[in-house]
């Protein structure tokens, strides 16, 4: 499976090159997330543990699980040597040059986890025939697609977050499962779940897969479940790993009786169905449909204007809003839709697992299903589907086509995160660089097997260029900029939602047709 490394210097070269590039953007724009993390450094450093989840001097309260708070605490020990001012809770929006340098460098160094995880993922890549040219080897392509991923780069190193660090643990756990080291994989996943609870999106995939393939030690000859092979030892050891990590993370707070408070911070359902900028998911399309129907209804005289909620959903506020024509959506409904969307993928894994790759496919499917239907999704969550899909993309032609659609669309939907003029060339250049590479490299990997994209898909992706020109060049110069300022965001969100939904459907179609063909083979 793992290719022999005649000259393995290329991986460190890629890793060092991208790390140096990240350092160039230390002084670029950073979002309020910078202040969020500075505030958390201050809280964890200056206050006792019992106050961590109660502190609200700043509006950016601690809303990640406790393990991340411990991580920030560790960082704050190093921060002391840079600038003590950032560790004072009252120093809101404190951003001295030393603070910026420290925080930016902490992201770059935390990415070492990600680099290690990518290295492990590259060793799991199957190479049918070892290509002579380094640029044509799947492991090289995967390394570039992951290390130089556009979304991760701009979200982490410009917008400012620690996703590289978190995805490192997730990809490491995936790699371990692909290497059939399940307990270790479960350990890494428990850790990442306790670092950022957004990974709950993919927890069902882990749960079903580990139950089916790890706890039930053997299958029947025809591949179906052998109930007798349930191994209590394995089940208990799995449970022990997960529980011990969770206990280490939440334990102190349970002991202090603060669990409800922590949970209320972690799951703030008072925030609306959509973020201020709608993530390109199903609800974006739902909202637009609702808006269109309400406008149509008013025009046709079927609806009373006075009865409609004013400027709902597009005002840029994150409160709960009502839909005008279609039924309003509440958190339980969103949860139900998400679970229903995940169910077929989970069912496929349960019925006929085919090893690590099946699990990975299910993971991607769960991540995308959650992105499509969950409550208050951020557009950055698309990376949770794109990054694991990269591993599948370098091995299968069909997955490569879906990856190109999802990655390009998902990455483009991140553009509104960098709205300053100075950062405009960065996002355009980096997007072009990554997109050009992904198209070219994947096409080379699967050359001779036909084109990866359907012509209509290619037209859609080219349409992204038109959307960009209209939203960032034409519209700001037009008279509607003042009266309808939300239109560029709306257009971006809806256009990308089409692409993401399409990828979601295509992934399912490919999963289910695989099931059908395998069934036919067996008959």
């Amino acid at each position, binding site marked *: 499976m793992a290719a022999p490394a005649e000259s393995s210097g290329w991986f460190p070269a890629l890793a060092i090159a991208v790390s140096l590039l990240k350092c*160039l953007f230390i*002084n*670029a724009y950073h979002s309020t997330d910078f202040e969020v993390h500075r505030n958390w450094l201050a809280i964890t450093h200056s206050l006792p543990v019992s106050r961590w989840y109660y502190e609200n001097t700043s509006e950016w309260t601690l809303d990640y699980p406790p393990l991340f708070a411990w991580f920030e605490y560790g960082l704050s020990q190093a921060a002391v040597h840079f600038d003590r001012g950032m560790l004072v809770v009252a120093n809101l929006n404190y951003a001295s040059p030393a603070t910026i340098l420290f925080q930016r460098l902490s992201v770059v160094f935390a990415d070492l986890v990600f680099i290690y995880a990518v290295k492990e993922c590259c060793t799991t890549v199957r190479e049918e025939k070892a290509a002579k040219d380094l640029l044509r080897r799947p492991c090289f392509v995967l390394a570039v697609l992951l290390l130089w991923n556009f979304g991760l780069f701009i979200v982490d190193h410009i917008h400012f977050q620690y996703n590289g660090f978190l995805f490192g643990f997730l990809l490491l756990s995936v790699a371990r499962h692909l290497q059939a080291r399940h307990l270790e994989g479960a350990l890494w996943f428990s850790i990442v779940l306790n670092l950022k609870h957004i990974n709950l999106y993919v927890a069902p995939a882990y749960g079903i897969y580990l139950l089916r393939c790890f706890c039930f030690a053997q299958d029947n000859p025809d591949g179906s479940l052998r109930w007798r092979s349930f191994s209590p030892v394995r089940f208990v050891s799995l449970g022990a790993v997960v529980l011990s990590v969770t206990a280490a993370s939440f334990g102190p707070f349970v002991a202090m009786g603060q669990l409800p408070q922590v949970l209320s911070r972690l799951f703030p359902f008072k925030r609306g169905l959509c973020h201020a900028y709608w993530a390109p998911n199903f609800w974006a399309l739902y909202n637009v449909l609702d808006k269109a129907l309400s406008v149509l209804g008013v025009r046709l005289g079927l609806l009373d204007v006075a009865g409609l909620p004013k400027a709902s959903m597009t005002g840029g506020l994150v409160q709960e809003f009502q839909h005008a024509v279609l039924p309003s959506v509440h958190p339980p409904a969103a949860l139900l839709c998400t679970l229903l969307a995940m169910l077929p993928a989970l069912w496929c894994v349960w019925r006929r697992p085919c090893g690590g790759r099946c699990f990975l496919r299910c993971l991607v499917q769960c991540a995308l299903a959650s992105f499509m239907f969950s409550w208050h999704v951020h557009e950055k969550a698309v990376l949770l589907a794109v990054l694991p899909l990269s591993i599948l993309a370098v091995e299968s032609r069909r997955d490569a086509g879906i990856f190109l659609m999802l990655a390009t669309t998902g990455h483009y939907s991140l553009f509104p995160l960098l709205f300053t003029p100075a950062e405009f060339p960065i996002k355009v250049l980096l997007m*072009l*660089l990554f997109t050009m590479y992904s198209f070219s490299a994947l096409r080379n990997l699967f050359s001779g097997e036909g084109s990866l994209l359907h012509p209509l898909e290619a037209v859609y992706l080219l349409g992204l260029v038109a959307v960009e020109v209209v939203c960032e060049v034409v519209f700001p110069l037009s008279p509607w900029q003042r009266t309808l300022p939300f239109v560029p965001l709306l257009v971006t969100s809806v256009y990308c939602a089409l692409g993401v939904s399409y990828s979601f459907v295509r992934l399912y179609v490919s999963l289910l047709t695989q099931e059908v063909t395998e069934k036919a083979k067996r008959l």
Partner: protein
Amino acid sequence: METFTLVSMSILLGVLVRWGVSFNSYSGAGKPPMFGDYEAQRHWQEVTYNLPIQEWYFNTTDNDLNYWGLDYPPLTAFHSLLCAHVAKLINPEWVKLLGSRGYESPAHKLFMRATVLAADLLVYIPAVVLYCCNLTNGSTNKKVGTLLCILLYPGLILIDYGHFQYNGLSLGLTLWGVLGLGLGWDALGSLAFSLALNYKQMELYHALPFFCYLLGKCARQGLTGRGLFSLVKIAVTVLVTFALCWLPFLSNPEQALQVLRRIFPVARGLFEDKVANAWCSLNVLIKIRSILSSDSQFYLSFTVTLLAITPSSLKLLKTPTFWQFKLALAGLPPAQRSALGGHLLPPGLHVQHVAVATEGRLADALCSDLAGLPRLQHPPAVCAGALHRGPAPAGGLPQAGRVAACMPAPSGPGPHHPPEVLH
């Protein structure tokens, strides 16, 4: 992977790195009263936009030559004028006569950085791409590797996008000249190089190889037949280019002389600050600057420079091949290092000049043609040896990107520090 994709990706990466460096501080940021090169360029926009051409190089009440007076040839002035027109459209405050001194703002910084990028995109990068694709040997991967190395050369990026200058324009024009000569279009190559000379007098370092190569080539073709025709064509091209660039200053001999006085300020002595050349090093042992008079210094350095570059030029005259031309540009043992001879010895030097020398060396180091000849040292290593300087640069330099040791010289201490000389 296709050549087009690889080349495009290299260009994208090169531009990305440039823009990344531009986020950081520039020369003289927040340092009144003189600030730095950034303010110099802004000031030239102000001067060229508001004052008539006759006053650009003269000391008048509106144009204080002590405050970053124009000391580049006319093409720089015209370029500043063009930038000033764009600046005026965006924000007239940026070029307000006397009122915009020391103007600093994020928007202005973005504008100035954008002008550098525009110049690079229009002149330098296309020249590099065409050079690597057409005039280097080897496989596609090797050509793209050369392209990437040249585009990512830190010295030029740090000076142009960090410190703030327009070296990409003059180097780009020179490279167009080299391209023209390499493809056999001598007249166009001469045109490009003449433009480069009229942009920065620093390109004089490369002038002798151009001259000797073209003269030798014409001589080879027969000075009575085709050779003479080529010679006349080239001469006319050069003269017309110079005439067009200097046209506004030719009406009055005093104008032309003043421009010359500004661009060759020999009164300033052998060298300034700390610089990696022979005079500075020699000065440690023998205090030349105090022993010799200003005029003697000038004649001494001129003679020694000429002596140092004569051997390679004579060789080039005798065997005017394109290969020999490239060697003369870059300098290679055993021939005397022409450009470095120029770099090491002439008066009033500044370290930015090494960018000129190493550019040529860099390109040649990667040429597979060099099989059999002593391999050129890796330019950054040469830089590291040559460029060790005194105090670390002031905070005005970018933090990241100190990959190569080719660092620009600091703006220098002292309140009344005159602007950089031949930079």
